[in-house]
């Protein structure tokens, strides 16, 4: 251990112009450093404000290994605090979600806190007279996460005081969230229908890379797409399809389709895949909904929102957004070789129920543990994690489409099969990991 801590040069050497070293996926030390540095210094998606609709509603979540608590205040604001009693460190709540009423009460010694974390009371008060408790951190109540941004109800946190502002960090890629939210004629989404969870035995970066990988569907999903095509054979191309077929069949599109869909990368690892069209572009039209969208947003903006259906937008390092269907995936790293993937579905206020059904259907077909599409992905992710241990070749190739000029630009538009989208992630990774790292001997 400690081959990387205090050695920013060694970390930087793992990410070359057109390839990356296998230690990125295998090293426990790098995983620990990622938690401390990358995930603490970046803006990471915590949850959606619609998960805590009423005062006292909370959700718990771990980010960078730290237990957090998001809670709705009586005045409607959303607060994020560390889920740690000021006394001994007990987690105040351990359910995934719930309502705490008007205060939090620690189950261990019954210290209580207001919803904003301010201390409310503790038993046997007289034993603290003349002590330093009030002046000490333990007397101040719950620790707040200082850097919280609620962007159109998407709640992000930056755990470290270092690092860029929210707007500087995400920049133009926030348009992906705007597009998803503006698909509601009322400009409002709610996370509904629960969450589909998978633990995949691979490094989180293997999963995240794949979100930007358009060369794999042809070969990885061959069995599922061939079965779908065989069952749909004989139907005319414009025959109305059942929703499941509408969603599965485009996975079988050829390399040329995915190449033409285009992609764009932004500073700090973010990307949009499918800037021209995607496998989601040809869902059935809904005239009444489109009229409502025009009435709400105006002709031009409504057209812009509805015509834009990227395959995936990545808000690095942990959030992947699909504006249509309205679904997100959240990558929650657990260990160097273990990653929790969450798939959430959204309902757009003022939009027909069909849109929500599309989100449920897509998540079920493609991201459920019982999905016939994801089985092959997951098998291959786990296979990569094992294969990289083989040695012989210590490097992972990201050569496809490499152009030396890309390194000097922060925003680049490219073809859809270019591995630039992945190279861009790793460049952001190297930058965040090595930034201001103390240099040791």
């Amino acid at each position: 251990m400690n081959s990387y801590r205090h050695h920013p040069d060694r970390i930087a050497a793992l990410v070359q112009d057109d390839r990356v070293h296998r230690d990125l996926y295998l090293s426990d030390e790098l995983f620990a450093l990622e938690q401390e540095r990358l995930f603490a210094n970046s803006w990471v998606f915590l949850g959606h404000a619609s998960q805590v609709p009423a005062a006292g509603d909370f959700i718990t979540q771990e980010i960078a290994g730290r237990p957090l608590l998001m809670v709705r205040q009586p005045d409607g604001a959303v607060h994020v605090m560390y889920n740690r009693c000021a006394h001994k460190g007990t987690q105040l709540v351990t359910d995934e979600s719930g309502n705490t009423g008007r205060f939090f009460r620690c189950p261990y010694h019954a210290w209580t806190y207001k919803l904003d974390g301010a201390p409310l009371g503790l038993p046997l008060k007289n034993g603290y007279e003349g002590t330093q408790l009030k002046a000490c951190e333990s007397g101040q109540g719950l620790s707040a996460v200082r850097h919280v941004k609620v962007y159109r109800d998407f709640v992000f946190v930056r755990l470290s005081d270092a690092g860029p502002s929210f707007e500087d960090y995400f920049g133009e890629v926030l348009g992906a969230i705007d597009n998803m939210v503006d698909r509601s004629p009322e400009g409002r989404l709610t996370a509904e229908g629960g969450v589909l969870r998978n633990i995949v035995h691979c490094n989180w970066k293997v999963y995240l890379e794949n979100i930007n990988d358009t060369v794999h569907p042809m070969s990885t999903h061959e069995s599922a797409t061939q079965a779908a095509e065989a069952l749909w054979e004989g139907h005319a191309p414009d025959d109305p399809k059942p929703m499941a077929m509408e969603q599965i069949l485009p996975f079988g599109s050829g390399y040329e389709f995915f190449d033409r869909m285009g992609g764009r990368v932004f500073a700090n690892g973010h990307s949009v895949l499918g800037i021209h069209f995607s496998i989601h572009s040809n869902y059935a039209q809904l005239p009444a909904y489109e009229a409502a969208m025009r009435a709400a947003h105006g002709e031009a903006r409504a057209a812009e929102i509805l015509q834009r259906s990227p395959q995936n937008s990545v808000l690095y390092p942990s959030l992947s957004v699909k504006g249509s269907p309205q679904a997100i995936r959240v990558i929650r790293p657990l260990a160097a070789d273990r990653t929790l993937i969450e798939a959430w579905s959204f309902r757009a206020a003022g939009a027909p129920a069909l849109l929500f059904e599309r989100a449920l259907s897509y998540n079920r077909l493609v991201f459920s543990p019982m999905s016939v599409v994801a089985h092959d992905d997951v098998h291959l992710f786990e296979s990569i994690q094992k294969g990289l241990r083989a040695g012989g070749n210590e490097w992972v190739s990201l050569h496809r489409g490499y152009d030396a000029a890309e390194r000097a630009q922060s925003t680049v538009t490219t073809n859809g099969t270019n591995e630039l989208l992945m190279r861009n992630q790793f460049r952001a990774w190297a930058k965040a990991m090595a930034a201001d790292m103390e240099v040791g001997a």
Partner: protein
Amino acid sequence: MNGDPRDFAAHEAALLDGRRFDEWLALFAEDGRYWVPLLGAAQADPFSHNSLAFEDRLLLQLRVERLKNPRAHSQHPMSHCQHVLQASRIEQEEGEGGEVRLRTPFVYVESRGGGATAAERHGAPPPRAHRRGLGHPREAHRPARPRAGLAGDPAVHLSIPPFLPPLFLITGATT
């Protein structure tokens, strides 16, 4: 199958455990639905909440056809499964439509690898109990042999009770 509807659940499980998927699919009525709700028995319907699976005949056919494709990568090595059923209870006796409602709690184990022989793959239980795979207690509601023409009524549907954690593991390589 004729006779005691409680035999239906055992028959269905045996077909799955024996990888006799075409025969399993033939048990479904044309309008049958295979439903694995995320919330188990607490989930009212498949439309307002995520489900692990909610499939019509077309999707079940897709599932079965995919497994026959040599490029179903996750089937190298192939999966074995074993249902361990409790005795089925009849919850609702045969009504006018000929429908019977059964409840069959069961434990389901799925694993890959482990070097099963061809003979073991066809009929006998898996050679060793590899418990790293899908292994969750479930409960099932299954009507007896579905009959044609029960329009709008799911012929076979499974439900998982609330004690199934919403976290489902896909893993299983045991080599």
